[in-house]
């Protein structure tokens, strides 16, 4: 049986008609009791299980997922990884994720197709250029890479961009982060799942939480569609459905769920070898390895759990893209979809113990959860294993809302989640 993925094993299996590949992960029956139970088999949940097993040597863990692995926002995002935030707390968090992404393929023995092609965040006015300079200064002071681009440098990395002074959205320059890029979203979920399974983690799909087992004021596990599962500690890692599960556990969260849409064009030859983000037009785009343009934008403005998206936002995103890249007008859209994202008042995530003791939270990533998967997993694993916050996750505890110590990235970096 071939377990390890390498060029050599590919060659060997090619000569044996691909008969020896081992299943990437088991599908075990749930046991009645685990040390740690993780609800949600997306990137963050699977990464949490992996780091618990790998870094903290806790092996009696289950990840339960109501659908299929990575079928929520992990499989619905636009695959961008970056750490271009404003506040030091955010840079510490998202740059940890980016650094872990840089070695993740090797660590997991799974090709996550990381491509550090750089991201340019466009400025369309003098005022936006001043804000861009402020962002670059903040990012450099906080210890991550950033560069202020003038219009010539923008033209160099985006030759198809309309930079004419008569453009509907004239370009003054932008913020460049060269270490940013894209990674294959499914591969991140599958890579973590395979590596966690190898370390003994039970990954149980089609297993939906029906209610929480609460005894003595403490969470003791959950009742699922496949029976009761008890655990010393339970973690809820369910993104846009966090409020829905929190209601079952008897508390509310500072979260509103919205649909975030994306779409892809038909595949074409390489035309765009970086990620472009334009807060002014509410559009961002990159080109996948298959050649499709992957296009995303801001949230729908109607709170929603419908994984579809409404038309006005899609129209705004596409028209913004076409104003910036007139040559994309001839492309046809192939697919459109939406994921349900969990938006907090300060556009920063929530990591910490919930109001129900024994139940821990990883949620509130809004539109930016994919890029943070390795950090979310590392920090929640630390919290579950030690019972204490990692220094990097401490500022993101839910207690910040009562203390008034918000980390307002919507205001700080203008990032719309």
């Amino acid at each position, binding site marked *: 049986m071939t377990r390890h993925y390498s060029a050599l094993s590919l060659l060997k299996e090619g000569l044996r008609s691909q008969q020896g590949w081992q299943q990437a992960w088991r599908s075990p029956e749930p046991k009645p009791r685990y040390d740690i139970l993780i609800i949600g088999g997306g990137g963050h949940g699977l990464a949490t299980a992996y780091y618990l097993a790998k870094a903290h040597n806790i092996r009696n863990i289950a990840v339960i997922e109501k659908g299929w692995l990575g079928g929520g926002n992990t499989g619905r995002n636009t695959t961008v990884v970056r750490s271009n935030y404003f506040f030091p707390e955010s840079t510490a968090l998202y740059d940890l994720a980016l650094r872990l992404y840089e070695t993740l393929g090797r660590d997991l023995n799974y090709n996550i197709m990381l491509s550090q092609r750089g991201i340019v965040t466009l400025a369309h006015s003098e005022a936006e250029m001043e804000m861009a300079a402020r962002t670059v200064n903040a990012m450099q002071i906080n210890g991550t890479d950033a560069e202020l681009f003038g219009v010539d440098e923008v033209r160099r990395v985006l030759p198809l961009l309309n930079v004419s002074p008569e453009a509907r959205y004239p370009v003054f320059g932008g913020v460049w982060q060269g270490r940013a890029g894209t990674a294959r979203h499914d591969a991140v979920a599958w890579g973590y799942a395979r590596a966690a399974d190898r370390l003994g983690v039970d990954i149980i799909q089609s297993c939906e939480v029906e209610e929480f087992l609460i005894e003595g004021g403490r969470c003791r596990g959950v009742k699922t569609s496949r029976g009761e599962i008890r655990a010393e500690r339970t973690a809820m890692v369910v993104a846009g*459905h966090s*409020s*829905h599960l929190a*209601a079952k556990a008897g508390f*509310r*969260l*500072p*979260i*509103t*769920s919205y649909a975030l849409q994306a779409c892809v064009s038909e595949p074409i030859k390489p035309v765009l070898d970086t990620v472009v983000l334009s807060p002014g037009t509410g559009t961002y785009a990159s080109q996948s390895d298959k050649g499709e343009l992957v296009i995303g934008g801001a949230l729908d*403005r*109607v*709170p*929603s*759990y*419908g994984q579809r998206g*409404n*038309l*006005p936002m899609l129209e705004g995103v596409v028209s913004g893209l076409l104003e910036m890249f007139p040559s994309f007008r001839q492309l046809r859209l192939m697919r459109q979809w939406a994921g349900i994202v969990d938006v907090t*008042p300060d556009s920063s995530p929530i990591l910490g113990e919930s109001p129900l003791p024994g139940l821990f939270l990883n949620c509130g990533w809004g539109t930016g959860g994919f890029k943070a998967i390795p950090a979310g997993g590392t920090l929640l694993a630390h919290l579950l294993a030690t019972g204490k916050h990692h220094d990097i996750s401490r500022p993101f505890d839910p207690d910040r*809302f*009562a*203390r*008034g110590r918000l980390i307002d990235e919507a205001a700080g970096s203008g990032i719309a989640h």
Partner: protein
Amino acid sequence: MQLFPCPFCGPRSETEFHFGGDAGNRRPEGFRAVTDGEWAAYLHDRNNPRGAANEIWMHMTCGEVFRMERDTVHHGVAQAFALLEGGGDDGLAH
């Protein structure tokens, strides 16, 4: 394009409306009596239900603030009420 029913204007495009939060989210009264936790819950915690929702919305073009019962999964609107015509528990200070 979804249409929402403004009690004053009738059915209008969703782009003309602004979400105003949960109906019934009453401001806790008593400057010294209200704890940090209660104040934070009023400011930040949300029902955010999956399914039937009871919400405050504003129709920005006419300025009408009203209560709307709708479903957050299939987006169907059950009812919309003008607040001053017995719209029920709206959470607004009158």
